[in-house]
């Protein structure tokens, strides 16, 4: 009961992770604009996005352990924690020079594919059940479709369109997460089973 009293609503956690995605998005857009050589001139900048990604993976574990309310939610959040850490760690290894293959970018492809699938699988309601359901479907398909960008980058690291697409994906995901309200209507639709709406 005490825990329930201090536990944040799901949307609060989503907004905080949206901020992390926005940081990732801005860093990746800037890198796409200036190119990897200029971006990598200062060592701390090279670590910015993989470090943030890895940190978000770490922070997803307490979310999984403390704030999920069903087994399927727990599994989904656990899978996001794992793939965020995997993707961040692989990219950290690449920028540190410990890993050399360009194919490590496939971890980002894998992360987006697994994340998108987990979002879609753990959302049990239809698109127009409530705003959160709509956003889960949109986020899931966005991640799955966008996984093509890191896939292209793994084989063609200098593909500009793929770099912009990968960067934009994180900005879009941030916007979608910021739009989240766990109990709110979407485009005027709201299921009678969704609960009491709030602002």
């Amino acid at each position: 009961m005490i825990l329930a009293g201090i536990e944040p609503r799901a949307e609060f956690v989503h907004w905080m992770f949206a901020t992390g995605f926005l940081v990732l998005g801005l860093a990746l857009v800037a890198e796409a604009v200036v190119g990897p050589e200029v971006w990598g001139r200062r060592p701390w900048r090279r670590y910015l996005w993989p470090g943030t990604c890895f940190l978000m993976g770490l922070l997803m574990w307490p979310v999984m352990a403390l704030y999920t309310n069903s087994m399927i939610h727990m599994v989904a959040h656990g899978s996001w924690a794992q793939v965020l850490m995997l993707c961040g760690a692989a990219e950290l290894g690449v920028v540190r020079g410990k890993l050399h293959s360009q194919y490590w970018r496939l971890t980002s492809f894998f992360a987006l594919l697994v994340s998108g699938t987990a979002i879609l699988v753990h959302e049990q309601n239809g698109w127009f059940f409530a705003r959160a359901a709509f956003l889960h479907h949109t986020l899931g398909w966005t991640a799955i479709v966008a996984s093509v960008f890191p896939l292209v980058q793994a084989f063609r690291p200098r593909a500009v369109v793929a770099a912009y697409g990968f960067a934009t994906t994180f900005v879009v995901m941030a916007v979608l997460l910021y739009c989240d309200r766990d109990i709110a209507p979407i485009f005027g639709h709201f299921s009678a089973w969704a609960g009491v709406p709030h602002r």
Partner: protein
Amino acid sequence: MSADYARGLQASRAEETTTPDTWRVRIVLALGPATVAAGVVWAIVQPWRLTLLHPHGQGLWWLIAEPPLYVVVVGLLFRYLVAPGLVADLRESEER
């Protein structure tokens, strides 16, 4: 200070101020302010998202969760921590 050196310094300063920014520099410099603007517009359109404007009776999480402010802060951090060094490196690489 010798006249030659002063003239050279003056010329390089004039060049710095007159060299037009490339589209890359402009985009990098615009990313932060654009993000800040997005957060400000959001706060104006949905003021109830900022519980700090009406804090009475709000719980701890409602007071911590201020998403438009999060967006503004990210934009400011990018503008003042990331953009200046990035623009300097970009200008240096473009001058070569």
